[in-house]
C-alpha cells in the first residue's frame, strides 16, 4: 500500500458501521451492529495520523496502545493488532462493543477536533472478532504454579479479568458466582442484540481452558462467608459482586402488576430467555400490542425499552426527567433506539402509577419539568411545572434509575469498611479493603460504572494480590 500523506488520510471519511435495518431488527434479538469488513477496517485505520503524542490513549481507562494496534490494522496484521490490544485489555470483543468510546478514547482523538474521530471502538471490535473467528482465542503463557489460592467473588468483567491475570501469574483461581450462569451484567443485563452471549461464553471458556475453576450457585455471604473462604485455604479474596440492588421510584402504585425493576425485566428476558417462552420456562409480561414506559435515561433504560419493542410493544416510551443532553446513555444507543421507533418523553417525571380494580397497571401520572440552575453534579436541575400533570396510558413499566449495592457481603463481613452508600472502601492503588488479604473492585466499589472500569479494577487488584501473595509465604 502506498504511503499516504497526512492530508490524504484526513480526506478519508469515517467508515460507517454496517448494521441490521431498523425495521427488521426491531423484531429480532440478533446483533444490531454487523461489524467492519477487512476493507472497511483497513480504510478506517488509514485515517489515523499516528500522532507522535497519541492523546487517544489518555482517554482509555486502561491505556490500550491505540496508535500501535491501529497501525497493525492498517498493515493488515490483524492478529498482531489483537495481541497488542490484549496487552492492556483482556476483553476487547466486549469493550469494542459496549465502551462509551465517544466519551473516552474517541473523545480525545485529534482527528475529532475538526472532523469525526477515528472509530477506535469499532476497530477494536473488528480485531477481536477477527482473532476469535480465524484462530480462536490464543492461550497466553502461564507461569509455573505458586501453590497459592485465590477466591474471586462474582463473575462480571471485574472478576473475570482478575481471574485471567492471576491464573497467568501461576496462582490457583476459583470464581464463585451466585447465579447459575457466568458473566454478570454481560449476560443478565446487556441484551443479546448489543452483546451476543456467545462472545461472553468464548471468553469464559478460554479462562476455563487456562485452568480457572468456576463455581456457580454460590452466593458468598450465604453459601460461604468471606471469612470461611479464607479458613478453607484461600490466601486472598477479590470481591467483584457488582451493583446488584434495584432502585425504585418510591411512588404510589409501584407494586401494581406490570411494574418491573430493570434488573428483573432484563434478567427474565436475557438470562432466563423469556423472549423464547414457552420454549424456555420463564415468562415475562406479554407486551404484544401494549404500551410500555421505561423510566430513566441510561444504557439500562435504552436496553429495556429496545427489548420491549422487540417483544412486540405497540408504543415504547423513554421517560426522563431532564433533557436529551443530560441523558447518560451512549449516543449510539439513543440513536439506535430512535431509529427503532422508541418515543422519548423528556422533561417528564412520574407522580404515581394507576391501576385497575384487579391491580394491573393501566397508566402513569406524569408532570412536565423545566431545567433550573445546575446542581452539585453540574447538570441543570429539573423543576416540576405546576399544573402540567397528565396521564399516559401504559400496561407495563420498567424502572431503570440505577442500582445500589446488594447488602449480602456487608451484612456477613463486619471487618470490611463500607461507605454510606454501601460501596466497599478500598485503597485506590491496590484495591485492598480494610480486611487483610481481601481486595475489591468494579461496581461494588464505584457504584454502577462501566465494563472497562470494572475490568481495569480487576487487573489492578490482580497485580496487588500477586504482590501480596509473594510477600506472605
Amino acid at each position, binding site marked *: 500500500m502506498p504511503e499516504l500523506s497526512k492530508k490524504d488520510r484526513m480526506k478519508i471519511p469515517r467508515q460507517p458501521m454496517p448494521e441490521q435495518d431498523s425495521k427488521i431488527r426491531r423484531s429480532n434479538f440478533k446483533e444490531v451492529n454487523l461489524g467492519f469488513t477487512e476493507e472497511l477496517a483497513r480504510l478506517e485505520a488509514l485515517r489515523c495520523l499516528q500522532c507522535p503524542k497519541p492523546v487517544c490513549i489518555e482517554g482509555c481507562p486502561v491505556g490500550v496502545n491505540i496508535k500501535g494496534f491501529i497501525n497493525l490494522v492498517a498493515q493488515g496484521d490483524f492478529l498482531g493488532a489483537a495481541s497488542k490490544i490484549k496487552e492492556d485489555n483482556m476483553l476487547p470483543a466486549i469493550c469494542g462493543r459496549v465502551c462509551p468510546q465517544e466519551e473516552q478514547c474517541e473523545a480525545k482523538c485529534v482527528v475529532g477536533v475538526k472532523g469525526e474521530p477515528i472509530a477506535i471502538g469499532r476497530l477494536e471490535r473488528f480485531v477481536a472478532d477477527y482473532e476469535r473467528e480465524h484462530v480462536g482465542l490464543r492461550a497466553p503463557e502461564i507461569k509455573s504454579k505458586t501453590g497459592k489460592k485465590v477466591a474471586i467473588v462474582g463473575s462480571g468483567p471485574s472478576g473475570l479479568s482478575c481471574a485471567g491475570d492471576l491464573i497467568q501469574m501461576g496462582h490457583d483461581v476459583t470464581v464463585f458466582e451466585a447465579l447459575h450462569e457466568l458473566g454478570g451484567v454481560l449476560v443478565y443485563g446487556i441484551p443479546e442484540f448489543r452483546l451476543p452471549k456467545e462472545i461472553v461464553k468464548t471468553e469464559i471458556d478460554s479462562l476455563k481452558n487456562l485452568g480457572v475453576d468456576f463455581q456457580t*450457585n454460590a452466593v458468598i455471604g450465604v*453459601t460461604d462467608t468471606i471469612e470461611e473462604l479464607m479458613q478453607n485455604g484461600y490466601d486472598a479474596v477479590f470481591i467483584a459482586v457488582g451493583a446488584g440492588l*434495584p432502585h425504585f421510584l418510591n411512588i404510589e402504585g409501584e*407494586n401494581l402488576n406490570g411494574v418491573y425493576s430493570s434488573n*428483573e425485566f432484563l*434478567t427474565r428476558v436475557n438470562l432466563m430467555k423469556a423472549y423464547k417462552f*414457552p420454549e424456555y*420456562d*420463564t415468562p415475562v409480561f406479554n407486551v404484544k400490542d401494549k404500551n410500555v414506559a421505561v423510566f430513566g435515561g441510561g444504557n439500562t433504560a435504552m436496553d429495556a425499552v429496545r427489548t420491549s419493542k422487540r417483544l412486540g410493544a405497540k408504543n415504547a416510551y423513554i421517560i426522563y426527567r431532564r433533557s436529551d443532553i443530560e441523558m447518560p446513555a451512549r449516543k449510539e444507543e439513543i440513536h439506535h433506539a430512535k431509529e427503532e421507533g422508541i418515543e422519548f418523553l423528556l422533561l417528564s417525571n412520574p407522580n404515581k402509577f394507576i391501576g385497575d380494580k384487579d391491580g394491573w397497571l393501566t397508566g402513569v401520572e406524569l408532570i412536565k419539568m423545566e431545567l433550573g440552575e445546575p446542581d452539585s453534579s453540574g447538570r441543570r436541575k429539573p423543576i416540576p411545572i405546576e399544573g402540567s400533570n397528565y396521564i399516559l396510558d401504559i400496561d407495563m413499566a420498567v424502572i431503570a434509575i440505577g442500582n445500589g449495592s446488594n*447488602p449480602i457481603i456487608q451484612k456477613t463481613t463486619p471487618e470490611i469498611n463500607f461507605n454510606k452508600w454501601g460501596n466497599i472502601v478500598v485503597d485506590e492503588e491496590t484495591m485492598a479493603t480494610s480486611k487483610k488479604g481481601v481486595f475489591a473492585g468494579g461496581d461494588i466499589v464505584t457504584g454502577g460504572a462501566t465494563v472497562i472500569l470494572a475490568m481495569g479494577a480487576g487487573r489492578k487488584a490482580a497485580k496487588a494480590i500477586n504482590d501480596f501473595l509473594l510477600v506472605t509465604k
Partner: protein
Amino acid sequence: MYKIINAKFLAPNIKRFVIEAPKIALKRKAGQFVIIRIKDGGERIPLTIADSDTLAGTITIIVQGIGKTTTELNTLNSGDAILDVVGPLGKPSHIENFGTAISIGGGVGTAIAYPTAVALKAAGNHTISIIGGRSKEFVILEDEMKKVCDEVYPTTDDGSYGFHGFVTQKLKELIDSGTKIDFVLAIGPIPMMKAVADTTRPYGIKTVVSLNPIMVDGTGMCGGCRATVDNKTVFVCVDGPEFDAHLVDFKTLERRNKTYRDSEAESLHDYKCYLDQIFEANLKN
C-alpha cells in the same frame, strides 16, 4: 448437578425429594429455602428446605405440582438429578421459647411449617400443630409432626379425617377453650394465611406467616418478590420469607402472584399434552 437420592409421593401431587447438597445441608436453618432449576432452559423456583441430614449430606424438599415446573419436577425419581440448587436463602425463622407455639400448615404448607415446628420444640416450647387438607389423603407429615409436637390436630375440609372444617376453625376452638397461646406460625395458601391472621388479630397473639411471592434470583437483585408489609415494600427473598401476619398486605401478594397466570396456564397445558403424547407412545410400544 444435584442427585436425587430418594423420591416419594406423600399425597396426590405432593412429592418428597431427598437431594444430595452437602454444603446446604450443613448450613441451613429452619425457615430457609433453596432456589432450583431442573434443567437447561428451566425456570428458577423457590422451595423450602423441609429437613436435612448433615451426615448424609442431603436436604429434603416437598413439592406440590401446581404449574409446569413443579409438575415436571414431580416426574423425577431417585437417580435423576437437578441442574441447579442454590441456598440456603432467606432469613432463618426467629425462634425462641414463647411458651405455647402453634404451627399451622395448609396442604403443602405443612411441609414448610415442619422445620420451624422442630426448632420451636427444641427451643422448649409447648408445641401444637394443626395440619389441614382438603380431604384425608391431602393431610401430610402427620407422623413427623407427632414426633415434635405435644398436640397434633389434623383437619379436613370434607370431614373425611380429623377435625371437620378449616384450620382456622380448629384454631378458634383452641383459643375459645382457653388454651394459652403465645405464638402462631401459619403457612399455606394465601387465603388461609390471611384467615389465620384475622383469627388471631383480635386476641393480639403474635402471628407469623411465610410469604410465597414469585421469585427469580432469590438474592435481592431483581425486586420481583416485593411485597407490602406495614405499608412498606420488602423483598421477601432477603427480608423474609417470614413476616408479622398482622402487617402483611395479602391482597397485593395474591394479585402479584397472578402476574403470569395466562402464560403459565399455556405452558402447563403444552407440557401436559407432551406428557400425554409420551404416555400414548409408551402404550403403543
